[in-house]
């Protein structure tokens, strides 16, 4: 690496911060447009679901432990459990199933 690593880090940090802070600071008012409001209302659910599947299946040591963790999280989430119990149960299911499977 011949270039300065700190300038690399500065470039990354500046871009990362600007794309996050500009909408938050420039959009100060409540958006009135019904389409935009509906769009932004649906964005979180769609983007989280898109990021979760199929990525969760390939995140673990085996596809099967990934599936089991996924199903466990879906069931607990459906039951309305909080973030911590759902996340920890998914981890435990993956860990235990890999002890048996691998």
């Amino acid at each position, binding site marked *: *690496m011949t*270039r300065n*690593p700190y300038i*690399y*880090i500065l*470039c*990354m*940090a500046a*871009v*990362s*911060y600007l*794309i996050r*802070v*500009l*909408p*938050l*600071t420039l959009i100060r*008012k*409540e958006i009135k447009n*019904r*389409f935009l*409001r*509906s*769009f*932004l*209302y649906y*964005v*979180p*659910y*769609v*983007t*989280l*679901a*898109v*990021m*979760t*599947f199929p990525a*969760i299946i390939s*995140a*673990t040591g085996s596809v099967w*432990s990934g599936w089991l*963790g*996924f199903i466990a*999280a*879906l069931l607990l*989430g*459906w039951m*309305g459990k*909080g*973030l*911590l119990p759902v*996340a*920890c149960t*998914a*981890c*435990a299911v*993956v*860990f235990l199933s*890999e*002890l048996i499977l691998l």
Partner: protein
Amino acid sequence: MNKRALLAKGARDGIPIALGYFAVSFSLGIAARNAGLTAFQAMLASLLNNASAGEHAAFTLIGAGAGYLEVALITLIANARYLLMSCALSQKLDSSTPLLPRMIIGFDVTDEIFGVSIAQPGKLNPWYTYGVMLLALPGWALGTYFGVLLGNILPVRLVSALSVALYGMFIAVFMPPARQNKIIAALVVISMATSWLFATVELFHFMSEGIRIIVLTVLISAAAALLFPIKEEVQE
């Protein structure tokens, strides 16, 4: 709720985030070491960026000796979805929220912190998000630091198990509303199915994972907004 209670609530939700972050950024540290960064430099990059895919892509380019502009550009592309999330988050804040809290929250808009913040009832009080950041920021930065130092010492099984923590949290965010609202439930199913399609069919592989997430989010949310515009009281 007062500031202290909100901070504590955020910090509690920050525990699984910090744990998951530690595991994910640990592997990111290995990528940083391969790119020739020291543990301190990698930690600094993580502390200032808070983005897994963006950092991974940037480290890869740094390792290949790319130019500064190229590194900035790949960061922009890999992180573009945060622009969308910040737009959505701007509507979750009370319009009277001052500039400083907006600038602090903007520092750490990640998939996870966005997810838990948007899941708060009513308008978002910045103190909740501060509480989450209090654990998430060190979890992410320290994970990267130890990833560079310790490489592959952490047992593979442990890393494997911890890496689903973040997905578990996403699921905990979208499942309760999906149970209440049939449209959201249908959107979740459609989102997962198309995401699987994009990841599996080679035709779509010209798009990076970050771009695929943006394309699907925009298309599906826009279609839903056209077909099922929200009633005014839903937002509050």
